[in-house]
């Protein structure tokens, strides 16, 4: 029964691209010619040649608000082998963070990306921490090779929205 419900949740998860509030998305330390739409937006991120690149140093801070409350299940970060991100910290519901206050509070989750992750293998997050997410801040601390520029080719956020999940979940369980 529990496996049924967990797989039900997995089946229901969607790409949260549609729920991103694009007017509020900010990215600090991005190279203006290689900006965040290259990694986040529908058409751009499929293009292998278009990357989000960092500017002054290798760290990146991406703030993504959502149009409604969501639960985040997993995340896919694709990038080149050398300059792809390695240590990624996620913060939920913290507005307008800067590089100076990333260390002020503990992240909701810390990911260390392996080369497989950079190929597209999703990283499952600590689901309990991401139950009630209004905004997500992705802090890329360093990259695989330690170079000065971090490149991100694609970011996919997978999860469910709060309103719709419960109904579907209930239905599935009732069927069995």
């Amino acid at each position, binding site marked *: 029964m529990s496996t049924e419900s967990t797989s039900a949740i997995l089946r229901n998860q969607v790409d949260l691209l549609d729920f991103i509030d694009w007017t509020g998305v900010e990215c600090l330390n991005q190279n203006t010619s290689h900006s965040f739409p290259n990694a986040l937006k529908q058409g751009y991120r499929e293009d292998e040649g278009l990357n989000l690149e960092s*500017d002054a140093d290798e760290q990146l801070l991406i703030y993504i608000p959502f149009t409604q409350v969501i639960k985040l299940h997993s995340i896919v970060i694709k990038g080149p082998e050398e300059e792809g991100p390695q240590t990624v910290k996620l913060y939920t519901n913290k507005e307008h963070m800067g590089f100076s206050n990333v260390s002020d509070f503990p992240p909701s989750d810390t990911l260390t990306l392996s080369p497989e992750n950079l190929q597209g293998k999703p990283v499952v997050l600590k689901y309990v921490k991401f139950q009630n997410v209004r905004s997500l801040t992705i802090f890329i601390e360093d990259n695989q090779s330690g170079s000065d520029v971090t490149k991100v080719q694609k970011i996919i956020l997978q999860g469910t929205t709060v309103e719709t999940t419960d109904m579907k979940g209930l239905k599935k369980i009732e069927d069995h």
Partner: protein
Amino acid sequence: MVLEATMICIDNSEWMRNGDYSPTRFQAQADAVNLICGAKTQSNPENTVGVLTMAGKGVRVLVTPTSDLGKILACMHGLEIGGEMNLAAGIQVAQLALKHRQNKKQQQRIIVFAGGPVKYDKKVLEMIGKKLKKNSVALDVVNFGEEDESKTEKLEALVAAVNNNDSSHIVHVPAGSSALSDVLLSTPIFTGDGEGGSGFAAAAAAAAAGGVSGFDFGVDPNLDPELALALRVSMEEERARQEAAAKKAADDSSKKEGESTSQDATMSENVGTSASESENKKDDMMDDENALLQQALAMSMVDPDTTVTARDTDMSDAAADDQDLALALQFSMQEDAKDQSDMGKLLADQSFVSSILTSLPGVDPNDPSVKDLLASMQNQPEKKDDDKAPKEDDK
């Protein structure tokens, strides 16, 4: 109309007592600060400006970013001069103040007035610049006061490190007769604000220059900010060129040949710019233009010549002599390629041209090379008029 929060870093170090900027460096700086605050708040009412001092006992924030102009002007009173400017600390405190701004949607900008010497290393300044860029803070530097090779180099490096897409600028203001605020008016620090700021600046310039009414050109900011901007910019350019012309005239008075060529070149520039001024005006009243240009000349020339003296110079058609000059003249005309309906008239007005000549010290109107120039100028604008006439017909 960019929504912006600005922190202005003032230098109140001992070096500000110097009087090479009138009345003192510190007072010139205070005037410039007032001007900037006004321009920022006018270009967007939601903009906020804050002020801090870099020298004295230590870096001190006088007023946190606010849109209340009165508060800012009030805090500039009773500031004491002393100590040494601490550039790095000043910028870092400014960055912190901006971080805690109330409206997070505002872009962050720091304006630094660097008068005293800079004791920090270039490396340290570059690191600070990179940090500012990382946090998307723009930086404008006004380099005045102490002139020092290393200081200029360091400040240039700092701005280069911060600069992202031309949002950061550095302006060097040498000591001289023109006020610090006036020089800043034409820099990207002001004009980067857009048209609202320039409208304010134009009105301020009128007040500073002792204009008759509140408006410089009888049209100005409230009705037509773009026109005001164009008029103001061309006025500044013309003034600067005429000052250069006056200086050149004084310097080259010994050499005849070299002198007359330089005179002709600068004079052609003068005519070019006064032509551009006239073409910018929508009002086609010849009298108003003349009067205004006379006023502009009078302001910059030592010996104002308001009466238009009719001169009977022989306008012989020997234009072929001065080919290079004619070419230069043609180029300067082409650069002002807009509706030049009045330009032909203006140049054809010999009396006006002659009045310029007589008011230029050191120019002898009876000099044959000057006469040749006048003749060649006659031919050039007539050709241009023919080109422009069909264009105007198309419109």
